């Protein structure tokens, strides 16, 4: 019932955060802190892997939206890997699937992110 977080550098401007567990009012602050730390270290493209997330609430969505705003302000990106239909549904019913770039596989997401870094 906790949130495991695994961050891996893709290149000096891009990182992937792999999440496992529940993102809620108790655990979301850790994710927020991690996004801020990456931002402060110069990362501009963040990929968040929600494959192993089994619960996510409005607090999690708030942190993701906040991160997305901060990164876009700096011409960066925050994209999501989200193959789980239950988790995807939370983005869909709130209309947030139109705000985030969401992918099904890490491969696809990395390809698109590299394209963004390129320009």
């Amino acid at each position, binding site marked *: *019932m906790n949130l495991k977080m695994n961050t891996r550098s893709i290149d000096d401007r891009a990182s992937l955060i792999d999440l496992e567990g*529940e993102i*809620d*009012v*108790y655990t979301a602050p850790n994710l927020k802190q991690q996004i801020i730390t990456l931002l402060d270290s110069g990362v501009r493209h963040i990929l968040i892997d929600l494959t192993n997330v089994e*619960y996510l*609430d*409005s*607090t999690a*969505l*708030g942190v993701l*939206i906040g991160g997305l705003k901060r990164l876009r302000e700096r011409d960066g990106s925050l994209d999501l890997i989200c193959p789980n239909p*239950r988790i995807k549904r*939370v983005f869909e*019913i*709130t*209309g*947030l699937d*139109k*705000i985030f770039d969401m992918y099904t596989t890490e491969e696809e997401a990395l390809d698109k992110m590299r394209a963004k870094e390129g320009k």
Partner: protein
Amino acid sequence: MAVETTPAVVELSIPCRPEFVSVARLAMLGVASRMQFTYDEVEDIRLAVGEACTTAVGRAMNANKTNAQITIRSEILENKLTIEVEDKVGRMPEVTAAAAPPESLNEENLGALLMELLVDEFTVEPTAEGGTRVRMVKYAG
């Protein structure tokens, strides 16, 4: 048609703190799993209750009232689940979730939007003790 009988009642009281919201979610998972809900509906209920508790926790943290308790009361009928989440930590602000464009959503109106979308009936009212009571109804089958 099913005859309405006396509902079974499950009542839970948790501290108004982030680390206890998962206890409410788990208990509601147990309640909803024993009813005629689909797997998706059970998930909806879990999330809706989580959101109701989360708004209370948010207000408690702002008001320095994390010593208060939240009460989650479920009334269970054959095909109707009524959940009342009540706190003593101030009023939930007016929300205009449905109207807001996705870009302008923050955690607070996202929570309200989710609750509205996930259950069949959703009402918020201030309590006499200066808190908030969220009432949600979900029909099974």
